[in-house]
C-alpha cells in the first residue's frame, strides 16, 4: 500500500466511525506501542469499554489478588493467524499478533466502575511484550506509561469495609518479574486451559472460546481437560482450594525454572513434593521475611509458618507476593490459615 492510499484508508476508517472498525494489527506489530490505547482499536467505544467484535472477553477460575481490583479480561487473536492449538499443560500458545488485555478498575461509588489501567500483553514476532496504559479522568482514553505510575485510592472489600490502597501500575520490567518463562522470555500466565475450564452462563467458557476462534477444537474426552478449581468454591476440598490459591498468587514465580526458584519453594499446582511445597522446609534467603520462624509451613501451626506470615504483611521487605498488592487479602489469609491448620491432622 502506498503512503497515500494508506492515509486514505485511515481517513475512510475514521469517517466510518469507531463502530465496526478493525483492530489495528500494524500498531500491535510495531516496536514501540502507540501512546494512546484507542489507537489500537481493541474497544469500539472506549468510554464504555465495548470490545471490538474480534476481542473476546474471558475470565479465569483462580485469579491473582491485586488489592480488590475488578478485572476485565479480553483476548484477541487475528483471524488470519487462526486459533491456538489445544494443550492441557502450560499457557495456551496464542499465535503472533494475539493480545491479552486486562483492565483493572474499582467501583466508582455510583454504581459504575472507575478504570485505573489496562495492561496489554502483545505477541510479536520477537516474543511477548507488555505495556501498561493508564486511564484518564474522563475515562475515555488510556495513555502509555512505560515506567508505571502510583495512585492512592480506596478499595471496598467483599464484606463492605474499605481499605486504603497504594496502587502501583507496574512498569514493563516489573511485569516480567512474574511474566517470565523458564527460557527467560516474556510469557502470559493466566490463560492455561485448566484456568479457563469453568462454567459460565450458557455453558462452559472453553466452548465459547472455541466458537470465537481463540482455541482450536477441544479433545473429545472432555473429562481429560484439566481444571483448576475456584479457591472460592465452597464445595471444593480445602486443600485443593488452598493449592489453587497458592498456584494463582505464587506459582508463577515459585516453580522450577521461574524467578523464585532460588528458594526451592514451589507453589505451582503441579508440585507434589511436600518439602518443596514448604512443609517443614527451612528458608534459604528469607531474611526478616522469616518472621523469626524456622519453616515455611509448620503443619497445624499457621502462626509459626513463614508462608502465612508473608501473606499477612504489607511490608515490602516481608510481603509475598512482592508485587501487585499493598493490602492484605483477608480471605486468602483465612484460607491458607485453615489449610495449614488442617495439615496438623
Amino acid at each position, binding site marked *: 500500500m502506498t503512503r497515500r492510499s494508506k492515509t486514505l484508508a485511515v481517513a475512510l476508517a475514521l469517517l466510518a466511525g469507531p463502530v465496526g472498525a478493525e483492530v489495528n494489527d500494524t500498531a500491535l506489530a510495531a516496536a514501540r506501542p502507540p501512546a494512546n490505547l484507542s489507537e489500537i482499536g481493541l474497544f469500539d467505544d472506549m468510554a464504555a469499554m465495548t470490545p471490538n467484535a474480534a476481542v473476546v472477553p474471558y475470565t479465569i477460575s483462580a485469579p491473582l489478588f491485586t488489592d480488590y481490583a475488578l478485572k476485565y479480561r479480553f483476548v484477541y487473536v487475528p483471524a488470519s493467524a487462526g486459533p491456538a492449538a489445544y494443550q492441557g499443560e502450560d499457557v495456551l500458545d496464542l499465535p503472533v499478533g494475539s493480545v491479552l488485555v486486562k483492565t483493572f478498575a474499582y467501583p466508582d461509588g455510583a454504581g459504575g466502575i472507575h478504570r485505573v489501567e489496562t495492561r496489554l500483553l502483545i505477541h510479536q514476532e520477537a516474543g511477548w511484550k507488555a505495556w501498561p496504559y493508564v486511564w484518564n479522568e474522563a475515562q475515555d482514553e488510556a495513555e502509555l506509561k512505560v515506567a508505571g505510575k502510583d495512585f492512592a485510592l480506596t478499595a471496598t472489600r467483599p464484606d463492605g469495609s474499605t481499605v486504603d490502597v497504594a496502587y502501583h501500575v507496574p512498569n514493563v520490567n516489573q511485569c516480567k518479574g512474574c511474566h517470565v518463562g523458564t527460557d527467560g522470555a516474556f510469557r502470559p500466565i493466566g490463560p492455561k486451559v485448566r484456568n479457563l475450564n469453568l462454567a459460565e452462563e450458557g455453558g462452559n467458557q472453553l466452548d465459547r472460546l472455541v466458537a470465537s476462534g481463540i482455541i482450536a477444537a477441544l479433545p473429545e474426552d472432555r473429562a481429560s481437560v484439566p481444571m483448576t478449581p475456584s479457591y472460592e468454591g465452597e464445595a471444593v476440598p480445602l486443600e485443593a482450594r488452598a493449592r489453587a490459591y497458592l498456584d494463582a498468587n505464587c506459582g508463577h514465580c515459585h516453580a522450577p525454572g521461574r524467578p523464585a526458584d*532460588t528458594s526451592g519453594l514451589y507453589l505451582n499446582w503441579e508440585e507434589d513434593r511436600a518439602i518443596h511445597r514448604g512443609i517443614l522446609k527451612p528458608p534459604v534467603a528469607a*531474611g526478616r521475611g522469616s518472621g523469626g520462624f524456622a519453616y515455611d509451613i509448620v503443619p497445624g501451626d499457621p502462626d509459626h509458618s513463614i508462608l502465612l506470615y508473608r501473606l499477612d504483611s504489607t511490608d515490602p*521487605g516481608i510481603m509475598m507476593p512482592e*508485587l501487585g498488592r499493598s493490602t492484605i487479602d483477608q480471605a486468602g489469609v483465612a484460607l491458607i490459615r485453615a489449610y495449614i491448620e488442617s495439615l496438623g491432622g
Partner: protein
Amino acid sequence: MDRSKRKQFPNVNVNPALTFVFEVGFRFPKGSWFMNRHIAAVAAILWAQSAIAGNEFHIFPGDAAEEQLQEALILAEPGDTIILADGVYDIRNGLSLDNPDVTIVGAGMDRSILSFKNQSGGAEGLLITAGGAILKDFAVEDTKGDAIKIKGVDGIAIVRVRTEWTNGPDENNGSYGLYPVQTKNVYIDGSVAIGASDAGIYVGQSENIIVRNSRGEYNVAGLEIENSYYADVYANELTNNTGGILIFDLPNLPQQGGHSIRVFDNKSYANNTDNFAPQGNIVGLVPRGTGMLIMANRDVEVFGNDMRDNDTVNVAIMSYVEGFEDENYDPTPKRIHIHDNVFGASGGNPDTSEFAEIVTGALGTPLPNIIWDGVMPLPNFFLWGIEEGGRHSIHDNVYEANPPFGNANLIMYFAARWLHNPSLSMKDASETYPSLAPVSVVIRGVDVNDQTF
C-alpha cells in the same frame, strides 16, 4: 597491539579479524609499515565509534528522578550508559533492569546515592535480570529488602559500589547487599557492603566468580559464597561482622554441591558483632566471632589470608547439621585445603550459642585456630573415617597463639556421648592436594583482567 593498549579500548576486540581482512582481502604483507598504519587508523575509528556507540541517559536528583531513572532502565539498549549525577536520590519503588549490556555509573560510591529510606514497594532496591550489566561508582542505601539483586544472567560487574543500611546492625535490615544468584560470570571489585542482616556480599547458586578488593563490615556474614562453583575470593577485608567469610552449601536448591573455591590474601579480623540475623535463617547459626566458616563444600583452598582477633574461632569446617530431605545433597565438607595463612590470637571470648558452647566444651578455650566438627556419615566414622580422597589438608600456616587444629568429634557428641573424643590431632587433615586453578570471568565477551572498569 599490546595488552596495555587494549585496556583502553575494551570494545575493540577485532584485531585478529582485521588482520585477516587485510591479509586476505588486500594482500598487504604482514607487518609492513602500510598495514600497521592502517590498523592503527581503523582501531582509532572503531574506538571513536565505541565511544559514541551507546546512548547516555543523564539522571539528576530531584522529584522526577525516580521515574526518569526507571524509564532509562527500561529504554536503555545494549551499549547504553545511565549516568547518575552527584547527589542523593529518594527512591520509593524497586528499580529494575532487564536489557542486556547496560552500564550504570555514578560519581562515586559516596557521591551518587540511591536512598530507599522511603521505599514503599519492591522487594529489593535494584533488580537486574539481563546479562552484561556493569554497575560502578554509586551506592544503594536502606532498602527494605535486598539492596542489589542479580538473578539468572550471564555477566555482572559490580565495581566500586556500596550497599549500606545506615542505621548499623539491625535485624530489620534487608538480607543481602550485593546479591548475584544463579548467575554465570560474576565480578565484584572494590565494593563495600555494610549492615546486611544476612550477608553483605552474597553470591549464590552461581559459577565463575571473582570477588576482590572489597570490604564487608557490620553484616551478619561479611562475604558469602553459597551453592556455587569456581570462585576466587581475594584481597578482601572483613571486619566487625558476626562471621567474616562463609563458604556454604544448602540442600533442596536448583544448584548445590558447592566446590572449587579459592579464598586467598584476605583479611578477616575482629568479626565480633552479635548475630543479628532474624531467626529462622541458616546464617543465624554463625557464632559471633568467626573468621571463616566452610560448610558442606568440597575443594576449597584457603591460603595467604590473615585472620585474627575473632572472639570464637578463626576457621571452622562444618557439615550441614540441620535435618534435610534431599538424596542429591552431600552435607559433608571434603578436601578443604588450608595453607600458608597467618592466624593471630583468637577465641578469647567465645560466643555463647549452643553450637559454640558445645565446641568450646569439647576443645577448650581459646579454641584452636582451625576447628572441624568431625561430623560424617556414621558408617564412615566406624569403618574408615572420612572417605579416601575426601580428607582435609592443613599445612604451613603460621599460628601465632592458639593450637593449630581441633577435631570436635561432634558426631559422637550427638550419637554416643560416652564415645565423644575430641582431639587436637591433625590425623584427618594431613592429605596433600595440588593448588586449584585460577578462575576466569568474562563480561561482555572480554576477560575482566583485560578490561578497565
